[in-house]
């Protein structure tokens, strides 16, 4: 079982990306997919939405899997494996999660050995200037865990914004794959899927 962690700040479009690309991933690879959704709130809205759309989902509400819910997360990964027997588990942490801490938590996983773990970090193109101003350090912290960076909501910004974002990411984490996407229009979702599962 491989794992993809789809992380990014609050409102960066994690749920929308997953909902709009999970069929493409399973369609192009034939892989059986399960989801683990972590919501900070006491009732996990994102998990309920995904479940409603027919996806194999387990929710982890009331906290953050990078810290307080770390042990629960490990149990949930094992449960997902036993319950759904997926080839791929997609993890959506809360928007305030530190993906590096999730990776550190996964080092304590004692279930059946996992395959590859890939971390995708989403950056909201619409709010980028605001987030750089207000959340630069936390955002940088999330970026450091990235194997791939997606600029979301690309259809709502101009080229200059995407160039600014690319410059910021390159100066922060160097040469990682960057893909601007729009989950709602579907733009570049195929590129993302090819990049993430090689299909």
């Amino acid at each position, binding site marked *: 079982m491989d794992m993809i962690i789809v992380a990014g700040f609050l409102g960066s479009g994690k749920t929308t990306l997953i909902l709009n690309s999970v069929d493409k991933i399973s369609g192009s690879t034939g892989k059986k997919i399960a989801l683990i959704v972590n919501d900070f709130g006491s009732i996990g809205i994102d998990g309920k939405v995904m479940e409603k759309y027919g996806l194999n989902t387990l929710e982890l509400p009331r906290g953050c899997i990078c810290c307080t819910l770390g042990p629960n997360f490990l149990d949930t990964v094992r449960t997902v494996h036993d319950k759904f027997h997926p080839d791929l588990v997609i993890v959506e942490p809360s928007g305030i999660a530190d993906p590096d801490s999730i990776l550190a938590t996964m080092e304590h996983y004692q279930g059946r050995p996992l395959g590859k773990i890939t971390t995708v970090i989403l950056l909201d193109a*619409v709010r980028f200037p605001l987030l750089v101003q207000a*959340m630069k350090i936390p955002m940088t912290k*999330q970026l450091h865990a990235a194997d791939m960076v997606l600029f979301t909501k690309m259809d709502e910004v101009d080229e200059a914004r995407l160039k600014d974002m690319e410059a910021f990411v390159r100066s922060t984490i160097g040469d990682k794959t960057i893909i601007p996407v729009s989950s709602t229009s579907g733009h570049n979702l195929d590129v993302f899927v090819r990049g993430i599962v090689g299909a």
Partner: protein
Amino acid sequence: MITEDFAAYAARLRIGFQSAVPADEVQGMLESFMSGLAMDCLEAGTRLIGHIKCMVESGDEIIACSVTYHDARVRCRGRFETPRKEVDIIVNVLQYGLKKKDMVRIVAECGRRSFVSNVSMSIEDLEIEEKELIQLS
């Protein structure tokens, strides 16, 4: 966590109308409620809206809406398809700058404002273990 200086509030609003309200009208009320939450948070001095999201679940229908930006634009997945006599909304507000008590007040005021008069509305705080029910009308 990458930040700890935020405040979160989750609540369940139970709205009851005197008679069934057309689907488009309820949709408009819900979007106005969400947009109002963002605008009132900004007016009250929020530093950054992290994510304001809500969910309405009923049978096979699910409507999930969210606001993430200062323009208070509401994005919804799903729409009401049938008239409603009551609506059960779960709302999560996560923002930087305001205290929880501010968000409790804002959610109550926006609920009253958006779902017009002649309704009953109760708000349940989902963040506390011992549930507190505020009956507003």
